[in-house]
């Protein structure tokens, strides 16, 4: 369970990279679920769509979603699937502050920075 942090401007490229990488490495096609288009907690948590990897793009602040993530994090763990959460630095900070159970069960938090075009 990993939280990936990157600037909003970089997010489409990161999403595309993630999907391509998962396709190449694991041969699975999956879609990125956006928080802004979710209807309920189970959908947010990917519990209504089985699969080994779920990518949730937290593209807006939603107290309901944050509560769901915090309270149901054990359910997510027990599915045995890998969860990748993508958020901007601001949203990630808020999320970590408001969801201590979620924070505690993340295996990693990674900051993604764009490649230096000059290759340094």
């Amino acid at each position, binding site marked *: 369970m990993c939280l990936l942090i990157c600037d909003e401007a970089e997010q489409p490229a990161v999403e595309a990279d993630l999907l391509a990488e998962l396709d190449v490495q694991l041969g699975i096609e999956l879609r990125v679920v956006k928080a802004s288009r979710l209807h309920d907690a189970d959908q947010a948590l990917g519990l209504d769509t089985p699969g080994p990897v779920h990518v949730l793009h937290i593209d807006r602040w939603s107290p309901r979603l944050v509560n769901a993530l915090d*309270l149901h994090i054990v359910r997510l763990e*027990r599915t045995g699937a890998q969860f990748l959460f993508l958020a901007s630095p601001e949203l990630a*900070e808020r999320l970590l502050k408001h969801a*201590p*159970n979620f*924070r*505690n*069960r993340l*295996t*990693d938090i990674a900051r993604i920075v764009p490649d230096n075009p000059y290759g340094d």
Partner: protein
Amino acid sequence: MEARGVSNTVAFDRRQIYRPFLERLGPIGSPRTLEEHDWIVPPKHDPRDFTQPPIHEVFADSAELTRGMQMALVGGTGSGKTTELLLTHRLLGRHADAVNEYLDLAEVTDLNEANPGAILAAIGMRLYARLKKAQKQKVSSAHEKLQVLAFGKTEWWRDPPDYDDGDSGFRVDIPGVMKRRFPALRREVQEVRGLLLEIASPLLRRDAQITTLIDGLDRLIMPERFRQFAEQDLRALRGTQISAVVAAPLLLWYDKSQFLADHFDLVRHLPAVLFDPEESDFLKSVLLRRGATELMDEPEVTEICRFSGGVLRDLLTLTQSAATSAYREDEDRIGRDHVRTAVLQLGRRYWIGLGSQIGPIRRLINKKEFSPDNPAARELLVNRQVLEYCRRGRDFFAVHPALAEVLAETV
């Protein structure tokens, strides 16, 4: 003769070593898996007082001797509350007539949406599942009604219901001279209580000892929601002879209103485990039970124990991260550098989002000053950036060692 191609097969398949090890550490195992594999190390004493028996023994003894006891276990995230509940559950099984139900409420209901009465309903449904066929037939009507109350129902009406029939009148509250110590039980909670008792009656008539171990409510970080369930569901359970052991949010331990003492017969606190190899080898035993020595030596085990801060989940997470790092580097064993990588990774996880809270953290590191009385400090405790310990009955606080390590590097 045809030349033989170069095989891509790895001669020594390291996956066969790392995979089972990671599975033993992984959090995906259900509580049942943990019990089946005997991966739980029972503590030898109360973490706050080494002269007292361990918490699970105290809980089990109390439930056995006084039916209807209500007990609370308070502790931070990852401190081992679920483990204590499972150990209590296991111990209670020593009596043949005991009916013990471990219930993770977050598995049963969405706690954000659940209302008072939900815990009673969940207990009722679990107890129904424990009844024999003939017993079930006798209480099937109560079970059906309970399900309707729990999950609601859909009805088709020819005409829309008329809520404005003028019969309901106006509500007028006339204050009394006394304030109720506890709020009155809601009508629907009383209704669920009645059905629960009917369902439990075949067991209670046999004089069975019923204990429910309720997990998940501790994830309600804001204690107000927990209070609501305690004031309604748990109070409704009083007098039913059904005992309850409940995992409660850490913040209630620091609550000045004595809420836990008022609502529970027995309260136990689970602080982070002190890393002191001379006094206790508990942390090390947890790792050894999961087969740590297959992949690392004594110094690495000790380092992981030290930097876990005594938070059991962090102990396992650090080991897992170190193992993954070693595997990634094509190493057959976990070395010092892999542990170091894992410690910094965990420390950074605690560091992100620290923001303005860095002040109290620095004060705690430099001057050993920390008070859980203000909301900002309590937030640090809830997020495990600051850990609470107890040595010989004396409470003290310390910055999580992995976070302290990252902060030391950033100076």
